[in-house]
């Protein structure tokens, strides 16, 4: 039945579904997990990178975390190549806003702009939809720290803690259990790592497999946005005790 309707992105099936969009969503459910957790003084993004071969040259720069402007970072789940296109256009659009209004684009406005592009590809035919979901972490004057997700359909939503990609339902359950209002950035970091370590398919988290970024305030109250280096992640993994707990778990 579906074969007659799913070759076009833009055509509803008799059951009222858009198959290509659903397939895109399904593709993302097999991609590496990404998690976002909001704290009272910042936001954490963590993502799992699939290491396919040890022969593969390990790129030093992050491949799932992208800075979008001075106040926003995002984590990607899905087709990285598709994400690149959207990221380029949104970086440009954020700078265009800065030029026009002399201030940084509000986070929700930026998310909305990505989603307008994504939505376009579910309606204007001939092409496939973007095979990516995002988690956005950002800060603006109006709402302070914020966390959003978006998916290939062009819908977006705001969260206190959320996940996309493989095992996102179990990650979501874990987050729901352990999330507390008013957490510090450090607590949020540990929570994100803990959830990531529990949902990962490989049995141990290492700095090669984890990407990490945070938005927080420094000592002067200035916004600090950073994508962590492998060394910093290594240190964090050790300090958070996620590694040791896993090893204990294996032994028992």
């Amino acid at each position, binding site marked *: 039945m579906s074969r007659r309707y799913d070759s076009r992105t833009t055509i509803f099936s008799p059951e009222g579904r858009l198959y290509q969009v659903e397939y895109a969503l399904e593709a993302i459910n097999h991609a590496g997990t990404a998690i976002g957790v909001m704290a009272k003084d910042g936001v954490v993004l963590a993502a799992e990178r699939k290491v396919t071969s040890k022969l593969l040259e390990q790129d030093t*720069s992050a491949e799932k975390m*992208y*800075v*979008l*402007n*001075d106040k926003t970072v995002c984590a990607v789940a899905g087709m990285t190549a598709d994400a690149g296109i959207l990221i380029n256009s949104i*970086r*440009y659009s954020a*700078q*265009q806003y*800065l*030029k026009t209004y002399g201030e940084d684009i509000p986070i929700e406005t930026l998310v909305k702009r990505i989603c307008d592009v994504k939505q376009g590809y579910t309606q204007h035919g001939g092409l496939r939809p973007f095979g990516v979901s995002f988690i956005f972490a950002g800060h603006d004057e109006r709402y302070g720290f914020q966390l959003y997700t978006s998916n290939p359909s062009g819908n977006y939503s705001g969260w206190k803690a959320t996940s996309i990609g493989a095992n996102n339902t179990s990650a979501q359950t874990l987050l729901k259990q352990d999330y507390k209002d008013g957490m510090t950035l450090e607590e949020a970091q540990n929570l994100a790592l803990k959830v990531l370590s529990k949902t990962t398919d490989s049995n141990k988290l290492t700095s090669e497999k984890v990407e990490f970024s945070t938005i927080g305030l420094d000592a002067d109250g200035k916004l600090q946005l950073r994508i962590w280096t492998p060394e910093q992640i290594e240190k964090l993994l050790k300090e958070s005790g996620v590694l040791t707990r896993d090893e204990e778990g294996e032994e028992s």
Partner: protein
Amino acid sequence: MVGKDCVAIACDLRLGNQSLGVANNFEKIFQLGHVFLGLTGLATDVTTVYENFRMKTNLYKMREEREIEPESFANLVSSSLYERRFGPWFVGPLVAGINSKTGKPFICGFDFIGCIDYAKDFVVSGTATDQLYGMCESLYEPDLEPEDLFETISQALLNAADRDALSGWGAVVYVITKDKVIKRYLKSRQD
């Protein structure tokens, strides 16, 4: 102006409409990462050109995952201005900075369609160009320490501006070393 492991860049603060002074808080030097851009000329283009380069350097920073270096920025300025060869921005840009990798001081100037004027000592731009050349030519000496460079560039600017009816109304001086930027406002004649 270039000193020993340091550079300085300075501008006046006047914005005027012919002979009428409109504002004494119009800064013409802009910081883009660790590079400094000075812009003289038509005020609307000063603002627009700065906004354009802010955009370009921000995008560069995200793409390259590092700040732009003064040498690369100078070439970006040049090609961006020449892009408008037949409908130019009416600005006289200067670039100053220290290469974060080599630690080498860098300055250069441009004409309004992007021809680069590299210099090892000083570059000038604006309505008081002639006066500035005179002052710099007589006050400048090579390898000045940051504090002496500050004194030299300040005196050169202040005294050149006083001989130009369209310049003055206060000044700003930046002294840039590898790990520090000092910004100072100068009082000057308010007439």
